[in-house]
């Protein structure tokens, strides 16, 4: 890494190279008894955005690092890496999770959807279009997580999953600004685009209930 050639590498290349060497460096799993700190490798196969992917990974690799550093799907972002910010939110078997707090090897057979699987620049997902229209971001770093989370939030409301602000646990659910704000609380936006994010999601939901605009 001290070689001057490395100076031409981008920051992303450097980080990827570091993560990759962490994943494959050291002795193979069979030699690990002699060196307790050597990585243990394991195989996992899952579907990412409809495509079957098989990886041999250090067991420590999070789903987030598998997506970003091994599959080069860098749409999913690493913010806090501790499940506090939501930038790493992806959808696994229809449910949103923090990919930073999940081991890749625990996703055998799972179907994973990342922001790259929701839409493309020439074919935006309605939530992506709505975020652009309503200016639901400034720097954009949290946006992929916000959009994956929002997609799952709308599905959760449809499926009748209540929230902390649902007034009556036995009533039908409504899409209100209050509901969206509560359900999106696991996605932090340090630029503070929250009110525009709620408007964007509300529009895709078919409009917020009356008197509940953000």
């Amino acid at each position, binding site marked *: 890494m001290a070689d001057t050639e490395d100076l031409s590498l981008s920051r992303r290349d450097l980080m990827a190279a570091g993560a990759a060497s962490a994943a494959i460096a050291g002795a193979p799993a069979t030699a690990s008894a002699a060196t307790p700190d050597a990585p243990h490798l394991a195989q996992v196969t899952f579907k990412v955005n409809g495509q079957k992917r098989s990886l041999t990974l250090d067991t420590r690799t999070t789903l987030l690092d598998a997506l970003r550093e091994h599959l080069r799907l860098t749409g999913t972002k690493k913010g806090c890496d501790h499940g506090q910010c939501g930038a790493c939110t992806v959808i696994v078997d229809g449910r949103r999770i923090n990919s930073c*707090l999940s081991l890749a090897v*625990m996703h055998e057979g799972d179907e994973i959807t990342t922001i790259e699987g929701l839409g493309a620049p020439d074919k935006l997902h309605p939530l992506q279009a709505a975020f652009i229209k309503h200016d639901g971001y400034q720097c954009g770093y949290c946006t992929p997580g916000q959009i994956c989370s929002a997609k799952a939030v709308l599905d959760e409301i449809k499926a009748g999953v209540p929230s902390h602000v649902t007034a009556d646990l036995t009533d039908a659910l409504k899409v209100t600004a209050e509901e969206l704000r509560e359900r999106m609380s696991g996605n932090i936006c340090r630029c503070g685009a929250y009110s525009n994010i709620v408007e964007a999601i509300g529009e895709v939901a078919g409009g917020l209930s009356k008197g509940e605009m953000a």
Partner: protein
Amino acid sequence: MKAFTYERARTPAEAASAAAKDPTARFIAGGTNLLDLMKLEIETPRRLIDVNGLRLDKIEATKDGGLRIGALVRNTDLAADKRVRKDYGVLSRALLAGASGQLRNKATTAGNLLQRTRCPYFYDTNMPCNKRTPGAGCSAIGGFTRSHAVLGTSEACIATHPSDMAVAMRVLDASVETVKPDGVTRSIPIADFHRLPGNTPHVETALTPGELITAVTLPKPVGGMHAYHKVRDRASYAFALVSVATILHKDGSGRVALGGVAHKPWRVEAADSALPQGIKSVSELLLAGAKTTSQNAFKLTLAERALGAAMAQARS
């Protein structure tokens, strides 16, 4: 994070037996707390036993009219279950007051009970902590204590248990079902499941080495009006400073438990009996023996007021 081997357990007894043979092993289910602690090297398991394939993910009616909640039922599914919403509203409310949607989708019933304290000194590996290193000393005592326990504390630890769900489980008199490494099963009343810190704050539950939670059982519904009132520093996605779980009946009788104030959900039988006498009597009994610092003494006033708010909420 330290390197570890990874395996998938096939039966609960097999998982318990494997864990008992290897003190460096940990079970992993949702992983939302364990992985966070492993990244910080507060937890350093050398062997992870994945219990997600054990089919402990059903909510079933019991013979005596209660519910048996599989250890692997996700917090989202438990909170959304129609039977829970109708008959055990306090549990649904407590779950929905905790964490974020993403975390609730992963976090399990057993894992929620077993989550570790969020004491900042427990998380800071540069500071002594009796939970991390027994005998090292407690950095919280004499440190910043605003979020810490005021009841049941010891000279060794003033950490709180962070779970909302457990407070509701306590007020519902749930039981924790387990299997031991030799295949023997037992049922532990939730009141006895979490321990006070005493001289061994690193021993947080009644579980023995390798013992695996298979389910949490709720007795038949007791009726009444249910409420969970949580007070925190922001409106969503934060741990409780103080929380109150309550079930009130029309005749004024009921039950109450507090969260955010002790090393375990806090319930006092005499305080339950005092409910018809009003909030003042209840909070005096609940908070008897409290030991506060200048930074967390506010929790006593807050608990009394939160109790009032919870009771008003239950009656509304």
